[in-house]
C-alpha cells in the first residue's frame, strides 16, 4: 500500500469557493469526500471536476440516453466507446461518430472548429478504422451581423484547413442560420472510417504490467479545463477564457493517424484512446474503468512543452494531437520503433496494476488516488424538473393558416426568390468549395446533394452519409422535430439508393437545469428513440453538448442526426438532379395543408410559429422501401427529398443542382388545388420524394405495392427551358439562369458585400 496523497507545496486550500469554481455542487463534493474518506487534494479536485463535468459525464443526459435503441445484428460496437461500429459485410466495418466543438468555436472560430475535426478523426482511427469521410453540421446567427460572418468564415476555414491537410474528404454537411444561434454557434463534426472487423480495437485497458504510453504532441498548458468550459453557459466572461481553446496541428494528426493504424495492425498494443476533453485524466480513467483494472501514472514521465507544469496542469491539459496507448508488456520496443518511423514523441508514463485504484504520482509522491473505477462510475446523474415554456406552447398552437399573405405573394415567383435567397436554403457551394471533397478518390456524390456517397474501394458497395436537423421544428415541438430529423436523414440516404443502417447523434441544447430546456432534451430524446425504433436505425454513439446559451437565451434545441446507409451496388447510386429531358416527374407521398414551422413563415413573415409538419413513421418506412424498390428496379433517374422550402424549392433544386448541366421542367400541380397555394408550393409536409423516371407506370406500381401514393406532376424539359409551375390559375416561370444566380450567388454575395450594403438591405426587408 502506498502513502495517501497529501497536498503539494503551493496547492491552494480546498474551500467551498474553490469547489464552486471547479463547477462542482456541494452534494457532489460530499460524494467525493465519502468516496475517498477524506478531503481531496487540489489535484484530485481538478480530476473530478473534469470527469464529472457535463461534457465528460453526461450527468444530465445519461438517464435519457438509455431510452435510445442501440442494437441491431450488424452493430458491432454501440455507445460508450470512442466511436460506434457497424458491419457492412465481407468482413468490413464502418466506425463513425459525431462530436461538437460549440463553445471553443464561439470564442475562437478557426481553431475551435479545426480542433473539433481533429478530435473526431482521432475517435475514429483509435477504433482501428481509416477515416474515409468527414461531415459537419453548423448553425450560426443571422449573416446580417459582421460578427456572425466572422464566425462563419472562421469555422469554415478551420474545418477545411484541418481536414484538407490530413487528407480526409469533407463530403457532406448542413449549415443553417437563425438568430437563436447568435453568440453561440453550433459546430458539430462527424467522421466515418473503414476497418476490417478483425482489426477492431476497443479502448479497454487490460493486462497487469502492461505499460501505458503517451504518444504524439507534448503536453502544454493549453486547454486546461476545456471540458468544464464547455459545461457552462457562454457569457462575456467566457471571452476571457479564450486561452482554454486549443490550437490544432493537422500535420501531427496525419502522422498520428498513420502511426496509430500501424500500431493497431502490429498487434503490439491492447488499447488506444485520444487524449481529448479532459486530456490525460479522462483517457486514462476511462480506459481503466472499461477494463475494470487499476492504473498508475507518473506525471514526471509525460513529455511536456514547458517547464514547471504541475500535476494538476499535466492531467487537465487539452493539448491536441496526443494519444494514450496501452502496449503489450515486452513489445515496447516495437511500439517505439513505429512511432519513431513517424517522428512522433513517445514515453512510457505508467502501467496497468492489479491493485484496484486510479493513482497518479509525481515521481515517488502520490498526488491523487481514487478507489477502483469509482471516479468514472460514481458520477451522479440528474433528472431535473421538466416543463414546457408556455410561450412556446402558445407559438405552436397559433393558427398560422390565418396569417394573411403579403401583397407581393400574389406572384409566387417573388416568394420563391425570398426562399432561394435565404442563406439556410441557398447553395452552400461557398462553403464546400473550401473543403477538399475529392481526396482519396472515392467520393461518388459530394456535397450539395441529398446525401454524400462514398464508394468502398475493392467492393461494389458504397456508403450514403448525411447529417440533418431542423432546429426550428425542434423549438416548436422537440419530440416531432427529433422524429423529423431522423426521418429526413433516412429519406436523404434512401434517395441516393442507400438503406439507412444506424445513426450517431449530437444533442445541442441549452442549460438542462432550466426546466424548459430539460423538457426539450427529454422530448427530443423520446422522439429520436421512437423514430430510430420505427426506421430500424439504432444509435451507436454520439455527443451531448449542453449549456448552449448566451445572455439572450438558449439556442434552438438541435439534436443533429448523422446517418450511415449502405448502397449494395454502385449501379444503384442515384442523384438528386434531373438528368434526362422528357423524363416524367413524379411526387411520392401525400401533400398536406401545412405551413407551421416552415422556412416560408420564417423568411417571408418573420415568424417561428405553428406546429411543425406531422411525421408518420409508418408512412416514412413505406416511402423508404418504395424508393429503394424503385431504384433497385432501375426506374428512378433522380430522387430528391422534399423538405426545407417545400415543393417549389425542391423542384428548383432538381433543375439546377447539377450546375454545369441544368434542365428545365414543366410542372402542373393543379391536382393539389384544394390546398392553399402557399402550402402546395412552400409547405414542408414530410414523407415526400421528388422523382424523375423514364417509366412512371412501373414506378407507380412499385410505390403502390408499398402503400405509397404517387402523383405525376410534369416532365423534365431542356436546358433552354425554364422551370414552369402551373397551379390552378397561378403560373410561376423561372428561367434557369435566374434560379442559378439566386441559389448559387446568395452566400458569396453576402460574404463579399460591405457591411453598409447589408444594413441597407436589412432595413428594406419588409419583415
Amino acid at each position: 500500500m502506498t502513502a495517501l496523497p497529501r497536498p503539494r507545496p503551493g496547492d491552494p486550500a480546498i474551500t467551498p469557493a474553490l469547489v464552486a469554481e471547479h463547477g462542482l455542487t456541494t452534494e457532489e463534493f460530499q460524494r467525493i469526500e465519502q468516496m475517498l474518506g477524506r478531503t481531496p487534494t487540489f489535484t484530485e479536485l481538478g480530476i473530478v471536476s473534469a470527469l464529472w463535468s457535463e461534457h465528460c459525464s453526461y450527468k444530465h443526459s445519461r438517464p435519457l440516453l438509455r431510452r435510445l435503441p442501440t442494437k441491431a445484428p450488424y452493430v458491432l460496437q454501440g455507445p460508450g466507446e470512442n466511436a460506434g461500429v457497424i458491419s457492412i459485410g465481407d468482413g468490413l466495418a464502418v466506425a463513425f461518430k459525431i462530436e461538437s466543438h460549440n463553445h471553443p468555436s464561439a470564442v475562437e472560430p478557426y481553431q475551435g472548429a479545426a480542433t473539433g475535426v481533429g478530435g473526431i478523426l482521432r475517435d475514429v482511427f483509435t477504433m482501428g478504422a481509416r477515416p474515409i469521410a468527414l461531415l459537419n453540421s453548423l448553425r450560426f446567427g443571422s449573416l446580417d451581423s459582421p460578427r456572425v460572418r466572422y464566425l462563419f468564415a472562421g469555422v469554415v476555414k478551420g474545418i477545411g484547413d484541418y481536414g484538407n491537410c490530413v487528407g480526409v474528404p469533407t463530403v457532406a454537411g448542413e449549415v443553417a442560420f437563425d438568430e437563436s444561434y447568435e453568440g453561440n454557434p453550433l459546430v458539430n463534426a462527424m467522421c466515418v472510417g473503414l476497418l476490417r472487423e478483425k482489426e477492431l480495437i476497443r479502448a479497454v485497458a487490460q493486462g497487469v504490467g502492461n505499460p501505458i504510453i503517451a504518444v504524439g504532441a507534448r503536453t502544454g498548458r493549453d486547454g486546461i479545463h476545456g471540458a468544464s468550459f464547455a459545461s457552462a453557459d457562454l457569457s462575456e466572461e467566457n471571452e476571457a477564457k479564450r486561452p482554454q481553446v486549443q490550437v490544432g496541428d493537422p500535420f501531427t494528426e496525419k502522422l498520428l493517424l498513420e502511426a496509430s493504424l500501424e500500431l493497431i495492425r502490429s498487434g503490439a498494443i491492447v488499447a488506444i484512446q485520444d487524449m481529448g476533453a479532459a486530456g490525460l485524466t479522462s483517457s486514462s480513467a476511462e480506459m481503466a474503468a472499461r477494463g475494470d483494472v487499476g492504473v498508475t501514472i507518473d506525471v514526471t514521465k509525460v513529455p511536456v512543452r514547458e517547464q514547471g507544469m504541475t500535476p494538476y496542469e499535466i492531467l487537465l491539459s487539452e493539448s491536441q494531437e496526443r494519444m494514450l496507448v496501452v502496449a503489450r508488456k515486452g513489445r515496447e520496443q516495437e511500439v517505439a520503433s513505429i512511432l519513431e518511423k513517424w517522428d512522433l514523441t513517445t514515453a512510457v508514463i505508467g502501467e496497468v496494476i492489479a491493485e484496484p485504484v486510479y493513482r497518479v504520482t509525481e515521481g515517488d509522491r502520490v498526488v491523487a488516488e481514487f478507489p477502483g473505477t469509482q471516479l468514472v462510475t460514481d458520477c451522479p446523474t440528474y433528472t431535473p424538473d421538466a416543463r414546457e415554456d408556455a410561450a412556446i406552447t402558445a407559438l405552436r398552437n397559433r393558427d398560422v393558416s390565418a396569417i394573411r399573405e403579403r401583397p407581393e405573394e400574389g406572384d409566387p415567383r417573388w416568394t420563391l426568390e425570398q426562399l432561394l435567397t435565404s442563406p439556410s436554403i441557398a447553395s452552400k457551394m461557398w462553403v464546400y468549395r473550401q473543403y477538399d471533397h475529392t481526396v482519396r478518390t472515392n467520393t461518388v456524390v459530394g456535397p450539395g446533394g441529398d446525401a454524400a456517397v462514398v464508394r468502398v474501394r475493392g467492393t461494389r458497395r458504397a456508403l450514403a452519409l448525411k447529417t440533418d436537423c431542423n432546429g426550428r421544428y425542434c423549438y416548436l415541438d422537440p419530440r416531432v422535430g427529433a422524429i423529423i430529423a431522423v426521418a429526413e436523414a433516412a429519406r436523404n440516404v434512401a434517395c441516393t439508393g442507400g438503406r439507412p443502417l444506424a445513426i450517431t447523434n449530437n444533442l445541442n441544447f441549452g442549460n438542462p437545469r432550466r426546466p424548459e430546456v430539460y423538457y426539450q432534451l427529454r422530448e427530443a430524446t423520446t422522439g429520436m428513440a421512437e423514430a430510430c425504433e420505427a426506421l430500424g436505425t439504432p444509435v451507436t454513439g454520439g455527443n451531448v453538448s449542453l449549456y448552449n446559451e448566451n445572455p439572450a437565451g438558449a439556442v434552438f434545441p438541435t439534436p443533429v442526426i448523422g446517418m450511415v446507409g449502405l448502397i449494395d451496388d454502385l449501379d444503384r447510386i442515384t442523384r438528386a438532379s434531373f438528368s434526362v429531358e422528357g423524363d416524367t416527374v413524379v411526387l411520392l407521398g401525400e401533400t398536406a395543408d401545412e405551413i407551421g414551422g416552415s422556412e416560408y413563415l420564417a423568411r417571408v413573415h418573420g415568424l417561428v410559429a405553428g406546429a411543425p409538419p406531422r411525421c408518420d413513421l409508418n408512412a416514412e418506412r413505406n416511402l423508404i422501401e418504395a424508393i429503394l424498390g424503385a431504384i433497385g428496379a432501375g426506374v428512378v433517374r433522380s430522387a430528391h427529398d422534399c423538405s426545407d422550402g417545400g415543393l417549389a424549392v425542391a423542384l428548383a433544386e432538381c433543375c439546377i443542382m447539377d450546375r454545369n448541366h441544368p434542365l428545365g421542367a414543366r410542372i402542373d400541380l393543379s391536382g393539389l388545388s384544394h390546398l392553399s397555394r402557399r402550402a402546395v408550393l412552400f409547405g414542408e409536409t414530410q414523407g415526400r420524394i421528388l422523382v424523375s423516371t423514364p417509366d412512371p407506370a412501373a414506378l407507380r406500381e412499385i410505390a403502390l405495392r408499398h402503400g405509397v401514393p404517387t402523383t405525376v406532376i410534369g416532365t423534365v424539359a431542356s436546358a433552354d427551358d425554364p422551370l414552369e409551375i402551373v397551379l390552378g390559375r397561378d403560373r410561376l416561370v423561372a428561367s434557369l439562369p435566374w434560379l442559378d444566380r439566386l441559389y448559387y450567388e446568395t452566400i458569396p454575395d453576402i460574404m463579399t458585400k460591405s457591411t453598409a450594403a447589408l444594413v441597407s438591405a436589412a432595413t428594406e426587408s419588409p419583415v
Partner: protein
Amino acid sequence: MKFGIVTFPGSNCDYDAYHAVVDALGEEAVYLWHKDHDLRGSDVVILPGGFSYGDYLRAGAIARFSPIMREVIAHAERGAPVMGFCNGFQIMCEAGLLPGALLRNASLRFVCEAVRLRVENADTPFTNRYTRGQLITIPIAHGDGRYTADAETLSRIEGEGRVVFRYVGGPGDADEWWSPNGSMNAIAGIVSAAGNVLGMMPHPERAVDDLLGSSDGIGVFESILSRVAA
C-alpha cells in the same frame, strides 16, 4: 512499367496516385519512403499531393530537403520522367526542378472543384495522348496554387511551349483564360526545359474513373506509357 510514389510526412494523395496507376492504368506502383535513398527501380517518379511537413513554412519548402529528393533529382537529371501534382508541383518548384513559384490563391481561400483545362502542348511525354487545344476536366484542391514567375521566365516557358495545361472557362469560352487561383497566364501545368519533368496543380490521379465524374486525367499516365514504350 514501374511507378514510384514518394510518401513525405503529410503526403495524402499518394494513395490516389497508387490506385490510379494500379487500378486504372494497370501498371506496377511502389511507395517510396522519404527517409530512403532508393527509388526501388522505378521508371517514373510521382511526387504526390498533400501537405508535406504541414506546409507550415511554405508549401514544399521542407520536403525538398528530404533524403529521397537527392535520388529524385538525379532521376530527373538522367532524363527520366518525374511528375508532381499539387504539393508535388510545389516541391518541384522549391527544389528547382521547375521554374517559378506557387503562391497563396488570389482569393486567399482553398479551392476544391472540377476545372476545365486546355492542353496547350500535346508533344510532351505527359500529354501525347491528348490533342493540342483539347479541353479536359480535372479536379483541383489547393490553397497555394497561384503560379507566379518573373517576366523573363514567363516569356521563356511560354515561348518554348512549356506551358502544357492552362485553366479556361466554360464550353462557350473555351479560349478564355480563367484562373481559379489567380495564376499568371492561367497556367495550370508546366514541363522542364528537357521536357521530362511535369508539374501541375490539378489532380489527374483523381480523374481516372467516370464514376467519380471524369476520366480525363488518365491521359497523363497513358502518355508516359506510350512514350517509354516507343
